[in-house]
């Protein structure tokens, strides 16, 4: 049997081709591309074979995520969202829920995951979306914003308040009371299908609510965010690789003052810093993925560190790449212009740089006291 990583990487390469620029400008991924990749299980390829998935390890998933991130951060964002949705169900669901939902996600269904609200971004404890059980039904009411992939999703995994804690409900996007409104002109990952999701007394069978209901919100979100942070971190490695390739190619061929740009020392420094940023980010991601694959509790902190470092490096590195390519990259759609906009968003999502720093400072004090 072929190596599942190689199969998945080839599917992504074929699906994207040279069309990422066009998708960025259109602000939309073609429906048939999303469907095709979902049907092959590529959007959540770490789902184990027992649920019909490709069964990639976190390390393999990371390599695939970097590959996708280097080609198209919008597609990579969809993989991040679907990966988190499938993991949330695997982490919190019982056997029946996993059989019902995870198998669908590995074989054609698409998913988004909804945390943020107007008044609850970094402070998820301020969520007001309510999850209420009544007999054999569960009712979900609230409004979620910036839900990545919601414009393409069949299922939306929604976090809300439940009693003194939180709960997670798998909401079909076509259930009565669900309204999905795409975000107009996002700064980055423009084709990732960001949308507002309004849930107006959405009533579902109670078995759409996952286990862990009533746990403190941080318990519920931590493992899922760890999955997402790893994915974003690896996606940033992909951004850095795309920027390196473009910057090295351009600086090696374009001549000014009678020699290639790369032979001008101030330009060469940009290449050097990008080169080191890519290597260091890759090593941080590999370390965090190994902790995940080992089932080590250190995975939580390692993922925050990798995400914070890789996102910061990607934002800096993409800005350098724009500087090196200058007018050659200063138009929407160009791989380096996309990287510049997409990387900035990576410093914001799945824990902003500042929130990451708070978590890392706490970690530092625990380790060094």
């Amino acid at each position, binding site marked *: 049997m072929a190596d599942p990583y190689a199969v998945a990487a080839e599917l992504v390469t074929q699906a994207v081709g040279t069309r990422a620029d066009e998708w960025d400008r259109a602000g939309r991924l073609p429906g048939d591309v999303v469907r095709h990749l979902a049907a092959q299980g590529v959007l959540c390829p770490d789902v184990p074979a027992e649920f019909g998935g490709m069964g990639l390890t976190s390390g393999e998933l990371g390599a695939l995520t970097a590959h996708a991130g280097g080609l198209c951060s919008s597609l990579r964002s969809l993989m991040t969202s679907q990966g988190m949705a499938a993991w949330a169900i695997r*982490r*919190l*669901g*019982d*056997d029946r*829920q996993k059989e019902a939902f995870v198998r669908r996600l590995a074989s054609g269904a698409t998913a988004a995951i909804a945390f943020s609200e107007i008044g609850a971004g970094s402070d998820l404890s301020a969520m007001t979306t309510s999850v209420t059980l009544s007999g054999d039904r569960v009712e979900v009411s609230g409004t979620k914003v910036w839900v990545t992939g919601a414009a393409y999703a069949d299922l939306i995994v929604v976090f809300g308040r439940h009693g003194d*804690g939180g709960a997670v409900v798998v909401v079909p996007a076509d259930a009565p009371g669900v309204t999905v409104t795409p975000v107009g002109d996002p700064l980055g990952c423009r084709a990732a299908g960001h949308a507002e999701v309004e849930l107006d007394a959405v009533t579902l069978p109670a078995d759409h609510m*996952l*286990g*862990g209901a*009533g*746990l*403190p*919100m*941080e*318990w519920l979100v*931590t*493992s899922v965010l*760890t999955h997402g942070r790893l994915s974003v971190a690896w996606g940033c490695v992909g951004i850095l690789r795309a920027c390196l390739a473009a910057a090295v190619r351009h600086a090696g061929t374009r001549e000014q003052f009678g020699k290639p740009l790369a032979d001008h020392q101030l330009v060469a420094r940009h290449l050097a810093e990008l080169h080191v940023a890519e290597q260091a980010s890759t090593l941080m991601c590999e370390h965090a993925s190994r902790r995940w694959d*080992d*089932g*080590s*509790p*250190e*995975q*939580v902190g390692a993922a925050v560190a990798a995400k914070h470092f890789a996102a910061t490096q990607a934002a800096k590195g993409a800005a350098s790449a724009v500087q090196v390519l200058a007018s050659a990259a200063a138009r929407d759609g160009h791989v380096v212009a996309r990287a510049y906009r997409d990387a900035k968003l990576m410093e914001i999502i799945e824990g902003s740089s500042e929130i990451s720093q708070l*978590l890392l400072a*706490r970690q530092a004090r*625990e380790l060094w*006291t």
Partner: protein
Amino acid sequence: MSSSTEQAVAAEAISADLLGFVERQTKASVTADLDLFGSGLVSSLFAMQLVVHVESTFGVSVQGEDLKLDNFRTVNAITDLVLRLRGNGDG
């Protein structure tokens, strides 16, 4: 089915591991009946690390209904949970 003696030995080993883990993480001295969350000793962030530690160390899967605060409130409660999940696993 384990005899009650074997059960007690197993419980002691599980409890010792958990006390060691929590003490290493919190750098505080902990007793098996201390309310880990009520005491403010461990953060909610630490909670998921605790779940992952329990799963990877004892080869159990904590999911669905078992994912609740009371099962993780004290080292004694976690020990009971592990023993119960192991019992289920062995049939």
